Every structure is written in structure tokens, then in C-alpha cells.
């Protein structure tokens, strides 16, 4: 395979990643509609999201197969190798994001309303917007190989964690006020948890971008 052809294949892989990413972004948007828009047709939106999840799964399989073949045939080195490795990692992350988004949508569909939950929901919306932004940014960083943007995404993850803590705190006080809300509150805690995980996956993708550009693995360094 010529270098030109190899580059074309890499670009194809990147556009597959971009379309997977687009799906995830859409799913998050639709999930937020399910949770926050009272007049929305929740059942229909849920079905849309489920179809997207299926599409992401098939894209993941396809991407995995392509990467596998390229590795076998090309035995790439240096940046080409890093590129394929980060595509494989990103592929996994995006698929996880899709699963998590579907889970959020499911919880949102069965959500019961209550005026007591107003503040918590407000916080949750803020978190969802924040996470969506992280997802958009990490995908942009990946497609444009933008290391700076990626590093920003990694920093943003801390805020996502803080928001989750805040939501949990709010929900705890709701439960204390009205124990009948305990089921709904637990669902909402679940939503926050999944959102936080999506943030983590976005961070993973951002870390892959840094690896792609520098060859350095910066995972698990903040904890130290």
C-alpha cells in the first residue's frame, strides 16, 4: 500500500470517528430533551437514541476491523502507529459514551416530576451542558490534532466532578425533605454518575490526543 493510500485510509478512519462522535453529541442533546423538556415525546426520543446507539455499535465494529487490518498490512511506525493506537482507544471510548447516553435517556424517560427537584435538575442541566461541551471539544481536538484544546478538556474534567458532587448533595437534601422521592432521586444520582463517566471518557480521548502529538502517556497523572 502506498503512503498516499495509507493516508487516505487514516482519513477515512478519522471521519468514521467523527461520525461516531456526532452520534454521541446528538444522543446527549436528545437525552437532555427527554429530561428537561416537559412537552417532549419521551418515548419517540428514546427510540431515536436507541437507534443511534445501535449505529455506534456497528461503527465501532467496523472501525476496529479496519484498524486491525491496517496494523497487520502496514506495520506503521512513529506517528502513523500512534494515530492508529489512539483511534482504537477513542473508538472504545466513544462506544462507552454511547452506552452511557442510552442509559441516561432510559432513566430520563421514567423520571417523575416534582417541584422539590427544581434546584437539582437545574444543577443537572448545567452539568449536562458542561459534559456536552467536553465531548464536542475532545472530538474537535482529536479531529484537528489540537493538543492545547485537549489539555483544556482534561482540566475541565475536574469541574464535572465538582458538579456531580453538588448534584448528589442537592439530591440528598431532597430525600431528607420527602422520602417518597427516593426512587426518583436515585435515578437522578444515576444520571449524574453516568454523565461523570462520559466526562471521563472525553478526558480519555483528550489524553489520546496528547499521546498522538507527543508520544507521551499522561494518563493517571493528576491523581499523584
Amino acid at each position, binding site marked *: 500500500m502506498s*503512503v498516499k493510500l495509507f493516508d487516505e485510509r487514516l482519513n477515512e478512519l478519522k471521519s468514521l470517528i467523527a461520525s461516531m462522535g456526532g452520534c454521541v453529541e446528538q444522543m446527549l442533546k436528545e437525552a437532555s430533551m427527554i429530561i428537561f423538556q416537559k412537552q417532549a415525546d419521551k418515548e419517540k426520543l428514546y427510540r431515536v437514541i436507541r437507534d443511534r446507539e445501535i449505529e455506534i455499535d456497528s461503527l465501532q465494529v467496523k472501525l476496529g476491523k479496519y484498524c486491525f487490518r491496517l496494523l497487520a498490512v502496514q*506495520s506503521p*511506525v*512513529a506517528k*502513523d*502507529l*500512534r494515530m492508529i493506537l489512539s483511534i482504537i482507544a477513542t473508538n472504545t471510548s466513544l462506544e462507552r459514551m454511547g452506552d452511557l447516553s442510552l442509559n441516561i435517556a432510559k432513566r430520563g424517560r421514567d423520571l417523575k416530576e416534582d417541584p422539590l427537584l427544581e434546584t437539582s435538575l437545574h444543577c443537572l442541566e448545567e452539568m449536562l451542558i458542561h459534559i456536552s461541551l467536553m465531548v464536542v471539544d475532545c472530538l474537535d481536538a482529536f479531529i484537528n490534532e489540537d493538543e492545547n484544546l485537549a489539555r483544556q478538556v482534561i482540566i475541565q474534567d475536574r469541574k464535572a466532578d465538582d458538579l456531580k458532587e453538588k448534584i448528589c448533595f442537592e439530591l440528598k437534601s431532597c430525600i431528607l425533605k420527602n422520602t417518597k422521592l427516593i426512587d426518583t432521586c436515585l435515578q437522578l444520582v444515576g444520571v449524574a454518575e453516568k454523565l461523570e463517566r462520559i466526562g471521563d471518557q472525553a478526558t480519555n480521548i483528550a489524553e489520546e490526543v496528547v499521546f498522538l502529538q507527543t*508520544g*507521551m502517556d499522561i494518563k493517571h497523572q493528576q491523581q499523584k
Partner: protein
Amino acid sequence: MSFKKGKMKQKTLIEVKALSAWFKKSQALSNINLLIEKNKVTAIIGPSGCGKSTFIRCLNRLHEEVEGAYLKGEVILEGKNIYDLGSDPVLIRRNIGMVFQKPNPFPGMSIYDNVAIGLKLSGIKKRSLLDERVERSLRNAALWKEVKDHLSRSGQSLSGGQQQRLCIARALAVNPSVMLMDEPTSALEPISTAWIEELIQKLKNQVTVVFVTHNMQQAARVSDRIAFFLNGELVEFNKTSWFFTKPKHSKSEDYITGRF
């Protein structure tokens, strides 16, 4: 390849300082500085005509055997500059074996004589000692089992891959501390190539190997250190694992990913 981080301080065997080489008026190497570590395999890679072969031929003073060739700079082997005025190229070459691109057993000589010739020329005459050294060299070159029953056959009757291993045995016989190989597998098919590659890996416990190759995958498989030459200059000298994952220099990256 080892993933362990070596804490041991590596010993330098050859230090190349400001080496430049010429053929008549054209400059083949300019200002090469390089440290070759003991018991490591160093691969020299680069496009054709970049001075790879010239470089390793400077390490055993073969460069000067070509008419009109000369050089400047120092090559310090085990603390002594081999280009010092008083040093004798004959003695220096005894300490540095060399294997060439095309397998070249000496014509008209048996397998035994091919291996023993270096020993005989260096003054060893005792038959038992010769026998022992020949066997050891052939074993080290992973050829003993195949040829032990017909040592008196002509060296040229062997297959290409065996001939190249014979040449390695011939170079090993005089107990060199460095082994230079100039594209040792470029004339061989894949199986013989794999044999030689495995051999290089084994040899590094006894000798320091410096080899030139056109085959990047081979350099990646076999070497510990990579020196990338371009237009007579050393562009990058790096650990192999680094060189093939994150080269320091964009020219190296372009070369190894084929975007040259």
C-alpha cells in the same frame, strides 16, 4: 526488546568524535558524533548514498583502503583513538570483525579454512587450538550442526544463508570486540534473514554489533539503538523503541513513515 528501565550505567565502547570523510573531493560524512554502547546492537539506517556504509568502514579503517579516500576526526575504541599516528590498522582490524553485503566465503577454501584463516594469519598454528576455535566460532554462528560432518567441503558449496553465517563465523574466530555488518541480509531470502537476525541478537552478549540496513523493520526488530543518517549527516541517534514510536526529528519521522 525489554520494557524494563535499565538502571545500570551503560559502558561506551566506541566514541566517534567530529568524524568527516571524503572520497576525493566529495564529502561522504560530515561531523559525526556518536557513542556506541558495549553489548548493544546499533543499527545504521538512512536512504541510499547517505554515508551509512562509509561510516562503518571508518570504524575499522577500511575507508582508507579506497583510492582517494581520507577522513578527519577521531574514533575512540576502548579509550584509544584508532586513527592515532602510531596505531596499526592491521592490529585494529583484528579487534573489529566485518561481514559484508554479499556472502563471500573465500574461493578455493574449505569451510574449516575459511574460519581458521584469520587465526592462522594471526599466528596460531596449533591444530588442537585451531580445531577448538573453529568449532566455537561455527557454534556461535549457529552453523556447526549443519556443517560439522563436512568441514572440508568448499565454503562456496553452502547455501546463501549458510555462507553468510560462515562469514560471521570467520569474523568471530579472531575474537573481535566489535562486529560490523554492512547490510548482512540484503542478499538473503526471509528465512535466512530471520536466522541472521536471531544470531545478531544472540551475539550481542559477546560482541558489540553495528550494522547497516535498508530494512527498517529489521532495524526495529534487531537493534537497541538507531542512528539515522541523511546526506552524510547524523540526523538522529536514539533508542530504537523511541525512534520508532516518537522520533525526535521530523526528518526521521518522514523517513520511517515513508513520507520522504
